[in-house]
């Protein structure tokens, strides 16, 4: 089952089992909630935006390995980044997943060079119904950024 191995790579299972930054933020932050009504996956996100950058973030919720790992990886990819950089990552991610149309941004000679751990989610493309799972944290992030009015 080559496709399954591609889908459930070790790094995904690691993030699923040991998600980064679980919890809530205290102090000033914006909150957003993502829900996939057809499967029930939930993703709750707190971010703190200061001086045009995401300085802190935390996640809660539950769901499949793909949505939860994607969320955990997102933490690594956005905290400490400027909003512009975050938008860039998000754009690259959506291109990689085929959610937005365009060329695959990944450099296949140098795995991890563009999106880091997130590149492990490539395998999801072969499972179209699961793309929504991988994307859930990112649509939630978009909503949080909108609320933050950045």
């Amino acid at each position, binding site marked *: 089952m080559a496709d399954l191995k591609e*889908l459930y790579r*070790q790094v995904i299972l690691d993030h699923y089992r040991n998600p980064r930054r679980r919890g809530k933020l205290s102090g000033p932050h914006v909150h957003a909630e993502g829900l996939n009504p057809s499967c*029930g*996956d939930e993703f709750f996100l707190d971010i703190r935006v200061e001086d045009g950058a995401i300085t802190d973030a935390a996640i809660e919720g539950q769901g*499949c390995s793909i949505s939860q790992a994607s969320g955990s990886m997102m933490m690594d990819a956005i905290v400490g980044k400027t909003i512009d950089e975050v938008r860039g990552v998000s754009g690259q991610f959506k291109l990689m997943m085929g959610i937005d149309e365009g060329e695959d941004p990944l450099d296949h000679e140098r795995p991890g060079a563009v999106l880091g751990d997130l590149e492990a989610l490539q395998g999801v493309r072969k499972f179209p119904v*699961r793309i929504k799972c991988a994307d859930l944290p990112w649509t939630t992030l978009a909503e949080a950024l909108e609320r933050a009015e950045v």
Partner: protein
Amino acid sequence: MTDLTHLRDDFPILSREVNGHPLVYLDSAATTQKPVQVLDAVDHYYRTMNANVHRGAHALSVEATDAYEGARARVASFINAGSPNEVVFTRGTTSALNIIAYGYGLNVLKPGDKVLLTIMEHHSNIVPWQLIARHTGVELVYLDLTEDYEVDLSQLDRILDDAVKIITVSGMSNVTGTLGPVTQLVAAAKSVGAIVVVDGAQLVPHYPTDVEALGADFLVFSGHKMLGPTGIGVMWGKAERLEELEPTEGGGEMISDVQLYESRWAAVPQKFEAGTPPIAQAIGLGAAVDYLEKIGMTAVREHEVDITGYALERLADVPELTVYGPSDPSRRGGAVSFELADIHAHDVATILDQYGIAVRAGHHCAKPLMRHLEVAATARASFYVYNTHDDVDRLVDALMEARKVFGLDG
């Protein structure tokens, strides 16, 4: 026990492959597959007698009406209804429950009245009552489940009073397979003058059902979960209940007269069948009922107890697998929900799908029950007449593979 393996030949879809494997369809609680007998009945209708019913003075219309009313009579006899007129065709279980909720809710129930439900209900037997509660001020009261996944009747005495006007309960849970305690609730209802509604979406397809023996006032179910087409369901009601129930939907066919500002209703069951009904689908359901009667509902139930028993036995061998539901197969239905180690239900389903095995994952339209069970999602295998022990074996093998994919020892 009758061997039903030969039935598989009647189901064209069962010979297809999924992801390179022969399909193992274990999602019959969501919807069942259809035998050629049902497909042919529908096709035959459209090819030879399609017409609108109850209307025409022409031959096709008469033939179509006879076929449609014939299906009603077959469904009535299938559940041992007092008369075909007690059988109302609806779009499905959900639609039927809404007709009952609105019919009583907007015309009979008063603020302070109570509707008694159980925590294992499907959303379709919860949300209509919530909508009605919003418009009328009735109160919803829930019975819990015991540790053995049975409806907890120990609280009944405390809860039951004259304010309870309707008791509504699933005949069989689509998540845990729990059988609803209909007999006890009917007795309880009698003591306070409440009516009893049975959500038979899972019961009627799987269990010999005799409305007279059941004693409830309403029984509703869906065609697509019992080998029939989508788009058709049944609201059975005792004659006197259907008489007193006000119709919800207005339109053609359900009237005896229409004036500009008021109308008079047609007799039961037309009163509840506004507009052109799902004619071909009712005829398909009639054929499904014929098919089930030919097998015999006792044989259907025996087969289900057997395969559920085998599944529970084999699943017990899978490490770290938790089944949510009663353990005695003779006291439950064939919807088997489970959790496998720390693998999320969707991941289980995706992995099984790669092996051609169709199970469902999620909340199964029963979020209150899921909260009660303290799980966000389960995987569910559910069985019907065409499933075999071999299907269960393939399920178990694939679950062991799922463990490997997630790095757990096989």
